Structure formats: structure tokens, C-alpha cells
């Protein structure tokens, strides 16, 4: 139990850094940078927690993105700023970068060979599908509060 907690804290710390870094890259005003980092840390560690209980990565990402969506709408209401400003920086740690990278590398290796090898094709398909579905889960999860709750009224 304690080790799980430590794992989550470790995870939260190391996902807060990229969230902060990309918030700076997107020129988020200085006074909101901390909130981006906080939302990023909460989202990624929530996903790690769900995956610890053997949830598949796509569904865990979906739930974590929905959590980030709800949190960032609260931030947005408090500061009168657009919610997507916090949310995009916050979900950057969850973007399936390695899956996308592996897909592309396997594709290039496929091109370099003269015949189609089943192992490489399997790598392309598995990693490519993961990439697409995780990205979809992120974006739809993020939009979930405004699709379900804020249907015909503005958030702020």
C-alpha cells in the first residue's frame, strides 16, 4: 500500500514537470502555470492508479482525461480563463509518444526490407492502434464535461 502511494507520488512529480514545460511552450500566463502542473500530475497519477488495478491503458486514459476535464473546468471558473488552456498542457504527459514512435520506426524498418515480415507488421498494427485509441480517449475524455453537462450553456 505504501509502495503504491510512493509510486503515485513519484509519478505525479515526474508528470508535473512536462505539464509545466509544455505550458511554458504554449505561453500560458505565469500565474496559471502551477495549475497546469497540478492538473497534469493528478491526471497522470490517476491513470497510473487505474492501470495498477489492471485497467487497460485506453480506458484508464479516458477516465483520467475526464478527470482532467472536470478539474480544469473548476480552475477555469475560478480564474475566468479558457479551460482548454489548462487541459492541453495537463494531458501532454499522457500523449502516447512512445507508441507513435514505435509505430513509425517499425514502418520505416518495413520499408527498408524487401519483403513483408509478420513481426514488423504486427508491431506496426499493435502500436498504431494503441496510438489512435489513446489519442481518441484523451480528446473525447477531455470534452466529456462539456458534452454531458454544459450542453447548451457556456462554461464561464
Amino acid at each position, binding site marked *: 500500500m505504501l509502495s503504491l502511494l510512493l509510486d503515485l507520488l513519484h509519478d505525479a512529480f515526474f508528470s508535473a514537470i512536462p505539464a509545466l514545460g509544455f505550458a511554458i511552450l504554449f505561453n500560458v500566463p505565469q500565474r496559471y502555470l502551477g495549475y497546469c502542473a497540478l492538473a497534469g500530475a493528478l491526471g497522470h497519477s490517476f491513470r497510473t492508479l487505474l492501470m495498477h488495478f489492471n485497467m487497460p491503458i485506453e480506458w484508464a486514459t479516458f477516465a483520467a482525461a475526464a478527470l482532467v476535464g472536470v478539474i480544469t473546468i473548476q480552475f477555469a471558473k475560478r480564474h475566468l480563463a479558457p479551460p482548454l488552456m489548462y487541459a492541453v498542457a495537463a494531458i501532454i504527459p499522457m*500523449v502516447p509518444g512512445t507508441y507513435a*514512435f514505435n509505430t513509425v520506426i517499425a514502418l*520505416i524498418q518495413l520499408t527498408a526490407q524487401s519483403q513483408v515480415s509478420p513481426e514488423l507488421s504486427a508491431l506496426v498494427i499493435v502500436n498504431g492502434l494503441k496510438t489512435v485509441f489513446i489519442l481518441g480517449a484523451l480528446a473525447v475524455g477531455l*470534452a466529456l464535461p462539456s*458534452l454531458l453537462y454544459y450542453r447548451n450553456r457556456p462554461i464561464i
Partner: protein
Amino acid sequence: MYADNQNDITRLVVRSAQLLLAYGADSDLVEELSQRLGKALGLASVELSISSNALVLTSLVHGRCITTTRRIRAHGINMMVVCELQRLCLLTEKGVYGANEVRRRLARIKPKTYPAKIVIPIIGISCASFCHLFGGDLMACVLTFLASSIGMAVRLYFAKRHYNLLVNFAITAFVTNVVAQIGYIFPITDTPQVTLAASVLMLVPGFPLINAISDMVKGHINVGISRWGNASLLTLASVIGITIAMQLGGIF
């Protein structure tokens, strides 16, 4: 409301919509904010048609329509501008600002960016912590930091000189990947492949991708598709850079 007055207000509204789109707001936000701003300034209704690089806006008062078109040139993502415009709209709605104040505030909006000496190291540290999250060892993280800092410096250098974004991404990916391959040449790390994957993550077009899907989900299909195409092209450009670097380095 007199005709020249309507002209004036329509110009203010279309200017704010243009700024919002140029600095990376999603279509739903643009539509909502310009309609609210227009109504707060006294227009009866504001209708927008947004496409990937232009914007058509019609304002209606007392049965009189004014339609105007603006070209949109993407300026990269700047949330300070979007934030400022959101605040402007809310304060106008509350009656704090009138048309004159809105005009003055709009003229004063300048896209401020963080200085390179902050952005470069923080992106390096971000990619290093990606490397750590993916299970790289300490030296792999240090290498990632080095590679992505150099890559980010290259990216800012080319962006400052207004190179095409695709060319910029390809060159950045190439340089980053070449530096990250140090791990294969010298046996200082056991996980050189994690360095390769983590160091190019700063090139993932996260904002265009999320904006694309969020636009498509909320009904702005054409803008969403064009943003998606843009993001895919950027990814493809970085892939070309990575491929050239890896084939030169002989890692296959």
C-alpha cells in the same frame, strides 16, 4: 444604432475572432466568444463561418447585415492572447467595458512569449522526465536533456527566421536524433532506445491534435479535419528527420 456604429463594432468583433483563431483557440470558443462580445456591444446576432485559413462574419442589427471576411495566418500557440480576449469578452458582458475601451484593449494586445533561456532548459527537463517515466536510467535522462535542449534551440532559431514549420520540424527532429544517438556510440547507458523515443517527444503536435478532435466532436468538422491534416503533416515532417538521422547512424 447607426450604420457606422455597426461597422465599428463588427470590426472589433471580427478582430477578436481573428486573433483567437490565429493564436490557437478551438472553433467552439471562437464562436462563443465573438457572439457574446457582439451581443454585449449591442449587435442583435453574430454568425460565423470558420474555415482552415479564413473567417467570415455577419452581424445583424435592425434588419441590416454586415458581412466581412478576414484571412487567418497561424502564429503559433499563445495562450496569453486567448486568455486576455476571454477576459475582455467577460468584462464587456458585465458592462465594465464599452466599445471604446474594447478597441483600446484590442490594439494593446501583444503576443508575449517566454524568453528562450527559460523555454530551452524547461523543455530539456520535460523530455528527461519523459525518459525517466519510460524507464530510462540516469545517463539516458541526461542524454535526453542534452538532445532535446539542443533540438529546442534549433527549433526556436528556425522559427525566429520564419522558416516553414514543416522544414523546421524536420531539421529539429534530425538534430535531436543525431545528438540522442550518442548513447549508441558510447556505452554510457543501458537504455539508448528510450533516449531516442523520449527526446523527440517535444515535437508531438499536442495542441493541434487535441483542438482537431475537440472541434470535430463539437460539430466543426471541416476545421477539425484541416487541423488534423496539419498535425499529421507536422508528424510526418519530424518522422522524415528521424528517418534520415537513423539511417545515417545505421540503427536498424
